């Protein structure tokens, strides 16, 4: 094997991923693997601190929000250059906002511009299918960008840090013809699928090439990057179909690292001298109780008994990577809005047995998938199943393929199922709002009081007030117990011993410019 034959600073950093980006233009994407790449190329107005989840400046050195929370002012960094040689100024930023607001009809739904529709949803001609409409407009003044909102939302300022709102160079925007896009069925524009020289950002790396035949995407260092130049001259993202193949490729020194290491491999890799830095937890895994599909689950006592029957500590100890914790509520404890006063449920099979004994319950689980919050669904399911059986529940398992599982869970087909979420940015609403903002078939929960609190939180512009509302909602939710939060697990990432790894981010937003060879 042996990679990085160039030596020294000129070495190529090869990173194994499960998938390559869906689109090089982040507006079209909604998945982590796309953003992992585009984040290296494009910058956003705001960013998270390296290795943490605090909001910090990105392209904006400083930012400010008016008291009513509707006017956001960003003071851009001076001397930032795009990869195509253009200079960053407020006009360039506004050009991006203008582009989004002027996107034609095919973009007005979550099928295409998922995050834009959810976070901003504003279009000059026509509406977003989500019903969102937050943006009034963007005004530029030298290096000052002012963005006017119609309403406040829990998504701000987080939305300004989302990879999907990355700033492209005005030159790029001129070449992009959004009007030519006719719909997802006809494919995405070529420039999103191949490096065609159109897309230029301000990030530490610029697009170099995309070899589809070999599932390799290459970025090269941008020497005029506004921050510290990247530690490696090239990054190759290489896709692998399975984690075992990634592990072997790493062990054979063909790649320098990969993400989402199976927990079972962490200790082994560490022992073999690889670096497996621990991330902060930023996700949540839960066991859902669909109250409408299974009448038994409509009974709070049953839900409580189920909560007592599952040995969550055992799952954390034996099946999740080190650093995981048993969750008390539907968000990790690092997120604002986390409440310390929620009702907790401890493992108590003896208390659960009288309620559950003799019951039969259907339990869905996904077969061929691995997510950051549930590295091996099968093991987790087996463990929960064993717990439930221990208290006398007959578990009717319904294993499903992932492609079938999500629709089934979303449509309420499954009474019991395991699922989770990784936060997009440091915002409690990004967790709770995902499930409990209104009635959904996923949970079948009918608590208008909770929904009301959630709606208020959604529109609350003040972070502290919002946190308080979310904490209140969290407490109500944990009393209602629509599902059992199981754990927040730190997804593992691994690097070979020859590199200095980047600071690992709980949001899985590693900055690869921090990587360098030893």
């Amino acid at each position, binding site marked *: *094997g042996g*990679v990085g034959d160039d030596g020294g600073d000129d070495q*190529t950093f*090869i990173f194994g991923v499960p998938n390559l980006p*869906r689109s090089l233009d982040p507006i*079209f994407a*909604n*998945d982590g693997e796309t953003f992992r790449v585009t984040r290296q190329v494009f910058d956003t107005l705001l960013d998270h601190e390296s290795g943490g989840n605090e909001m910090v400046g990105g392209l904006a050195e400083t930012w400010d929000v008016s008291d009513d929370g509707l006017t956001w002012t960003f003071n851009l960094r001076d001397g930032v250059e795009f990869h195509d040689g253009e200079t960053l100024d407020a006009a360039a930023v506004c050009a991006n906002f203008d582009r989004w607001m002027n996107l034609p009809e095919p973009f007005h*739904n*979550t*099928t295409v511009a*998922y995050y834009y529709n959810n976070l901003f949803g504003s279009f000059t001609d026509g509406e977003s*299918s*989500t019903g969102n409409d937050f943006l009034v407009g963007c005004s530029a003044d030298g290096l000052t960008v002012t963005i006017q909102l119609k309403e406040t939302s829990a998504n701000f300022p987080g939305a300004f840090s989302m990879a999907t709102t990355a700033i492209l160079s005005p030159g790029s925007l001129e070449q992009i013809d959004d009007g030519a896009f006719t*719909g*997802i*069925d*006809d*494919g*995405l524009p070529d420039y*999103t*699928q191949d490096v065609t020289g159109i897309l230029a950002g301000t990030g530490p790396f610029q697009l170099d090439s995309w070899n*589809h*035949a*070999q*599932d*390799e995407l290459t970025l090269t260092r941008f020497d005029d990057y506004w921050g510290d130049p990247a530690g490696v001259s090239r990054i*190759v993202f*290489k*896709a*692998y*179909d*399975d984690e*075992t*193949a990634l592990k*072997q*490729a790493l*062990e*054979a*020194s*063909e*790649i320098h690292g990969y993400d989402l290491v199976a927990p079972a491999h962490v200790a082994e890799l560490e022992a073999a001298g690889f670096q497996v830095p621990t991330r902060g937890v930023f996700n949540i895994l839960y066991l859902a109780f669909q109250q409408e599909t299974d009448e038994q689950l409509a009974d709070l006592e049953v839900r409580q008994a189920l909560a007592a029957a599952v040995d969550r500590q055992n799952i954390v100890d034996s099946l999740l990577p080190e650093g995981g914790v048993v969750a008390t509520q539907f968000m990790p404890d690092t997120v604002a809005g986390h409440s310390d006063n929620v009702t907790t449920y401890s493992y108590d099979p003896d208390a659960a047995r009288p309620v559950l004994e003799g019951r039969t319950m259907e339990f869905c689980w996904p077969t061929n998938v691995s997510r950051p919050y549930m590295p091996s669904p099968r093991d987790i399911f087996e463990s929960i199943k064993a717990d439930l059986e221990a208290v006398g529940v007959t578990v009717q398992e319904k294993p*499903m*393929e*992932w*492609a*079938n*599982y*999500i*629709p*089934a869970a*979303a*449509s309420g087909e499954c009474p019991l199922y395991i*699922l*989770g*979420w990784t936060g997009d940015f440091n915002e409690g609403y990004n967790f709770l709002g*995902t*499930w409990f903002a209104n009635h*959904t*078939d996923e949970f079948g929960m009918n608590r208008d009081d909770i929904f009301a609190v959630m709606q208020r939180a959604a529109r609350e512009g003040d972070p502290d007030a919002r946190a308080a509302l979310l904490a209140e909602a969290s407490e109500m939710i944990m009393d209602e117990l629509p599902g059992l939060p199981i754990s927040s697990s730190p997804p593992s990432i691994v690097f070979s011993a020859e590199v200095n790894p980047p600071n690992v981010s709980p949001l899985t937003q590693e900055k690869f410019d921090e990587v360098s060879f030893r």
Partner: protein
Amino acid sequence: MVRYVVTRLLQLIPTLFGLSVLLFIWVRALPGGPDTALLPENATAADRERLRQDLGLNDPIWVQYAAFLARLAQLDFGHTLRGRAVSTELAERFPATIELAFVAMLIAVVVGIPLGYLAARNRGRFLDVSAVGGSLIGICTPVFFLAFILKEIFAVRLGWLPSSSRLTPGTSYTDITGLRVVDGIITGEFHVAWDAVVHLILPALALASIPLAVVTRMTRASVMETLGEDFVRTAESKGLTARVIQFRHVLRNAMLPVVTAIGLLTGALLAGAVLTESVFAFGGIGSFLFQATQSRDYAAIMGTVLLIATVFVVVNLVVDLLYTVLDPRVTVDR
């Protein structure tokens, strides 16, 4: 001859047509849909519904099929869920599969035929028993496990060979045919060709395990049968040298069933590629198909399976033609 080829190729049309109908219904009957691949876990029911609508999945199936055919008439296989043209994807990825399958078949033939031949000549002796035993074990080992073991030994432990990819990632090369070894030789980039060869060894070995075993045993059986034929005895009675008898009389006849088997094995190879390419991150149409199945990428599944079926039929046509060359008794115009 030309007529025969043309007719056989024309015959392909109804086969592919039938296959496409079958597949179309089948694929759409798979539970779940493409939404899981395209939307995040927290997407709402409305989001999912909208996606199905945008993809035309809510139309009656015959409307969808008509649309598919209309596109196909312009050689448009539609787009993958990831937004690229299926035909482009296949064109880019197929060379990898060809290269892999070809090398695997080469291994099977180059090793299998002599081995089977020697086994037959030494029937019942150590060589025979170990060749037969070895090939049976080859057949009986699940491919993914064999691949894993090969990688663990030769890539991870010994570090002799790479465990994945077609080339060392980041290598620059000139692309002409998409076959890296061939390109490397054509353009004089011999280090690329060599790199490609090195990367081919393990996956090709894993993929070759079954064809190798089949070819070995087939050759052995066929040679044994041929050795008992009257014309071999005639050749002996003519006092010919052992070499002439073995090559002109025994091997040539013994090869006939093996040739057919090789044609049929193409199917097994293409299927085997699904596993092998995934395990070795080789990037051909095998792993493409597997991912397409997982993400319910209907257009990609259709395109790939139709391609595989076409290749299978064409390869077998070539084998049949080859057969007429090898065996004068068989004429194409049966």
